[in-house]
């Protein structure tokens, strides 16, 4: 605003009226956003400064004590954060690479391509409970599970997919990729269709190979969808909870407990809503910072 004034920029009367109309149009959303999003965030922070039972009893101001315990003593907080980041590391690249690969594969002008696009997107519309129940069967222990039955039929030993701490999180990540990759595929597909065919034609005339076209035209052309997918994926991965709850319940022995599940346990099972709110606020700051860094990183790249 100061820069505009400095440049001697002034809105005319009509422009001011138009701006006012714009403000009036977004006001209902703004009011609802403040009431249902912004104020609860502030209230969450206020609760995190208290001992606060989930039913609203036993409220006592404790200042930053919850944060102090969280950072200095709570081993489960750190292990849950570790599990969450591990999950994000496993599922994130899988979702992006597979989504992009599917989009490239389905970005063809051939008869019936719409059917394939629908088929690959379909798992995304299933509820988490359905996905959980199906994959609990697919990766069931012993020889009753579908994958283990296949392994046994070729003479391999069955694997404890969800009941072994080394296998459980990768198996959850595989399930997540199968379930959610359709969404990323759709975003990349839309991005691919925005890239002008003339760029490819020109590059081919100059002797560009397939890899060169992909590297110098497709990938830069997908910068915005890529940013969108990465930010969204990171947020979704850090917030993972229902899928793990249905598949492993955080087990075995807490080895797949993500941060949101830990937050839920402390808040609702242990009644420590104040402590749970502290975890939520730390998560909020973490995600906000990462998202800002990502946006800055990509916008910097765009400028270059």
């Amino acid at each position: 605003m100061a820069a505009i004034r400095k440049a001697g920029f002034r809105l005319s009367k009509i422009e001011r009226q138009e701006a006012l109309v714009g403000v009036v149009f977004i006001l209902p959303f703004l009011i609802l956003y403040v009431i249902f999003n912004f104020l609860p965030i502030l209230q969450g922070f206020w609760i995190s400064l208290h001992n606060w039972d989930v039913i609203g009893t036993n409220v006592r101001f404790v200042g930053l004590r919850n944060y102090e315990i969280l950072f200095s003593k709570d081993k489960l907080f750190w292990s849950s954060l570790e599990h969450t980041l591990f999950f994000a590391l496993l599922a994130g690249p899988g979702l992006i690479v597979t989504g992009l690969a599917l989009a490239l594969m389905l970005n063809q002008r051939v008869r019936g391509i719409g059917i394939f696009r629908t088929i690959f997107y379909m798992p995304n519309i299933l509820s988490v409970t359905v996905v959980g129940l199906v994959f609990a069967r697919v990766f069931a222990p012993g020889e009753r599970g579908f994958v283990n039955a296949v392994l046994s039929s070729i003479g391999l030993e069955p694997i404890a997919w969800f009941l072994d701490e080394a296998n459980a999180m990768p198996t959850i990540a595989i399930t997540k990729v199968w379930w959610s990759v359709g969404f990323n595929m759709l975003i990349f597909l839309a991005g691919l269709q925005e890239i002008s065919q003339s760029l490819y034609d020109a590059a081919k005339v100059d002797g560009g190979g397939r890899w060169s076209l992909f590297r110098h035209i497709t990938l830069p052309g997908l910068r915005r969808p890529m940013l969108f997918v990465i930010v969204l994926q990171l947020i979704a991965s850090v917030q993972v909870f229902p899928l793990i709850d249905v598949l492993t319940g955080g087990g075995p022995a807490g080895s797949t407990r993500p941060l949101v599940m830990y937050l839920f346990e402390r808040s609702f099972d242990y009644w420590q809503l104040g402590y749970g709110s502290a975890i939520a606020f730390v998560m909020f700051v973490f995600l906000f910072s990462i998202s800002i860094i990502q946006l800055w990183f990509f916008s910097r790249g765009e400028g270059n």
Partner: protein
Amino acid sequence: MRRLILILGILVLVLSLGTTALAQDAMTLTVLRFFGDCVDDFGDVTDLSGITSECGIMTVLTNIWNEEHPDIQVETIVADWPGTTQLNAAIAAGTPPDIAVLHGRRIPIYASRGALTPLTDVMEAVGIDASDFTEGAADYGLYQGEFYGVPFDLAATIWHINLDLWAEAGLVDDMGAPMLPTSVEDFVSAAEKVHAATGKPIAEMAGQAATVRSLTAYIYQLGGALADDAGNPTIDTPEALEALNFVLELQDLGVVSRPYNEINGAIAVENFANGESAGLIDGTWRINGFDRQIAEGDVALKNYYVADFPQLFDNPGTFAGSHNWLVPLGQNADPARVQAAVSFIKWLSDNSVVWARVGHGMTRSSVINSEEFQNLPHRAEYASMSQNVRSVPREVWGNAFWAIVHEEVEAAVLEIKTPEVALADAQARLDDFVLFQS
């Protein structure tokens, strides 16, 4: 003509006032419960014949009450299991239901915060005889000596037995009953015989049945306790270590159950129904399902017997949960409303024998001794369960105890931690919980 209109007008007025007065006299109670929603199937049904599902029985019982008690109508709000999310939200919003159902181990934390109405006096006033509850069952409704919940049933860990496979191992007597082991040596010997004869495990266990439920049962059987005299949790004790080592030994034997990481709850149940295990350690809630499958004839299991959880040490002790009816109207509730609520609870309790069809154990001696209960399938086979059950200590940490101990014992079973470290970690987490509450 005018007079006639006047008289008719007065009549209408009197009648409408009378109706209004009657409507005001009728009280509507809200009941928050889980057990599912099946109004489409049972919404108008008032005949309990042949109904064996939790949801069906509860819906029909409510319908019958409403038909018989026009003065106290009951409105059901169905919550998702375990019912706490909706109940907590309702209490926090200051609009609690008049009645709710909860697992007994959750009662202390609500009662300690003044969210529940004390019931001992009002139970007596409406005619609920507290001495009729079995010793084990009464505990589930108590907190600091006061009833805050009316124990409705006992959902215990029991031993489901495939008699045909036991017979192959020569472990069925002349009366057709299994020869149940009464010591560790007997148990191991029986497991080896069954495995030698059939190649199948004698007592398949998965999930919590193999961890916290077995552990707490053996701690009680060894004479240990889960709380000290001050009410603080004690899990890092010599008895707990002995019990945990025993749980691990049973796993290592390889003839009691399949390895922990090769089985989950659903598959253990399928294995038993398909005749792939000679026994299953699981809950009372499975009984009706197995009986139904046998009657339908689509499973390998044919001759089915239900035994108590094996007592292998000196003292009786079996894990059980218990559904309790409670009044979450707080400490200063309207006495008339509380009395009406407890009248409904008493009526449910008086008719609880119908609930036993699901397989649940009963909490009242008079119901357990009734002909109707005794005539239900298998009930005589595990009759002592109602006396042997032990509740989680009636402390605010009771609910947290369950999840924490399961996780730590699971870590020991999967060899992620040594038994000593697992118990020490469980104790530390429980101590933290207690410290947080103080």
